[in-house]
């Protein structure tokens, strides 16, 4: 049985009902790593927020999202809150703004345990420290007692990873978790994510605009364009035989190593002509 099944998901915003996600369907098995790739505005983040039930009130959602047998579309927020952090969790894009500046980091990481595992503050502390060490923070004690502004971007993103993973969720949604980090930190955070996901046997829905990043973490990938899924398949197949012209453009731009010196770098527009809007 699949863990997450999204069927005919359509999301519109506002009074004018502008369509952000248009009849999207996909499935994820337990422990599967699925990437969603697409440019800004292609609907990938909105799809992720819909699964978490965190869309703003102006959004209208139709279709169906089932997670582990629970139908999430139309579920009241209090019931969804029980699933968030327990069955599913999310890593956000901006480590600078995703941590509360007025709260010590350790408390924020522990919050999930206090809410779901019924743990008290003291007993959670040991587990928080252990998790912080697992995401590569060696001075975990000091980090747990720090406020977010005392930590670097990479440290904060690791804390967010710890927050999302500490309660062993079945599904972790990562929304461009490394976009705000510089390239060396990015590589380390990605390999850490890979390691912890494998250890926890958690499924991961990984959102990115960078095909190279997705190929490091995921086995399968969906390509989204203007609210629709235009191509889906294993990452290797996508690289070797991209079908949709937009995907061909993505693959070509991800392989700038193949470009002869002196030649113009490829752009997505060389392969895919956008219709004038």
């Amino acid at each position, binding site marked *: 049985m699949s863990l997450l099944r999204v069927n005919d998901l359509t999301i519109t915003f506002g009074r004018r009902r502008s369509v952000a996600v248009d009849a999207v369907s996909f499935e994820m098995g337990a422990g599967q790593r699925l990437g969603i790739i697409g440019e800004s505005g292609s609907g990938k983040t909105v799809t992720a927020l819909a699964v978490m039930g965190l869309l703003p009130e102006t959004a209208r959602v139709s279709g169906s999202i089932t997670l582990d047998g629970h139908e999430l579309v139309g579920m009241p927020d209090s019931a969804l809150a029980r699933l*968030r952090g327990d069955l599913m969790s999310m890593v956000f894009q901006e480590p600078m*703004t995703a941590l509360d500046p007025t709260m010590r980091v350790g408390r924020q990481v522990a919050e999930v345990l206090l809410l779901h595992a019924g743990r008290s503050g003291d007993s959670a502390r040991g587990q928080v420290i252990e998790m912080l060490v697992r995401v590569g923070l060696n001075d975990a004690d000091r980090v747990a007692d720090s406020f977010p502004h005392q930590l670097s971007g990479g440290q904060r993103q690791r804390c967010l990873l710890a*927050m999302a993973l500490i309660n062993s969720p079945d599904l972790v949604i990562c929304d461009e978790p490394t976009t705000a980090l510089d390239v060396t930190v990015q590589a380390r955070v990605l390999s850490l994510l890979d390691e912890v996901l494998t250890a926890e046997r958690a499924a991961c829905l990984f959102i990115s605009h960078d095909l190279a990043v997705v190929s490091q973490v995921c086995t399968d990938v969906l390509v989204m364009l203007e609210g629709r899924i235009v191509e889906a398949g294993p990452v290797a197949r996508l690289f070797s035989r991209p079908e949709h012209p937009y995907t061909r453009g993505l693959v070509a731009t991800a392989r700038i190593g193949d470009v002869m010196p002196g030649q113009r770098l490829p752009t997505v527009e060389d392969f895919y002509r956008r219709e004038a809007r």
Partner: protein
Amino acid sequence: MKRLGLWLGAALAGLVAAMALISLVWTPYDPTLVLGSQRLQGPSAAHWLGTDSMGIDVLSRILIGAQTTIVVGVVSVSIAALIGIPLGLLAGQAGGWVDEVVMRLTDIAYAFPALLLAILLAARFGASPLTAMTAIGLATIPSFARVTRAGAKQVMSTDFVLAARASGTRWPAVSVRHVLPNIAPLIGVQASVTFALAILAEAALSYLGLSTAAIVPTWGKMLRDAQAVMFNAPLQAVWPGLAIAVAVLGFNLLGDGLRDLLDPRLREVS
């Protein structure tokens, strides 16, 4: 000097608080002791600020008056904060029709003159500091509700609230654990400014005879007494006037200073 206003405000507000504390244990004379032979004296070694038309030591009355001022400020601000902040949080967090209803009620309360409310309460329950404080507190609920709502709206739209919700935190817990600590500076500034407003309002109410019983000296009532001898002894009006001005200025400066100190846009990035 940096933050001159903040320090000056803190010093003036501290001075008023110190006067109130000192008067609890010591005043130069009994502030109700009538010295019939020494009416309307100017400042002297025996009476630093002179005596009033009844022959009571003015400094003693000013010191005792600081007590009322502080109590009025604290109680009024507490009433306004205890009702206004939860209302603002509710409106900011719920949105939709709840927000609409709370904010329109706030508008109505804002439009209702505070003085009229004080007169109504005094007429129904008798003129006392309690009715004055209640009137001032009720009248300043809307400003607390608005400030809280605006701050809450802003905090609710941040990534860290989204992250907290993604962890399964529900709305009431989000309000208490994430929204309140983040808008605490805003509320502190509002409390300080409201404190100054309450002092001024209480002075006005007791000047109008809508606050204190006859025996308890307050700065507003001293102004009222001074009015009768305005042209013979103008200093009688100067002392309580100066005390009110110092207190109001102090708490206003403190509020402004706190805002500058705590405003994240002005804070240096560490």
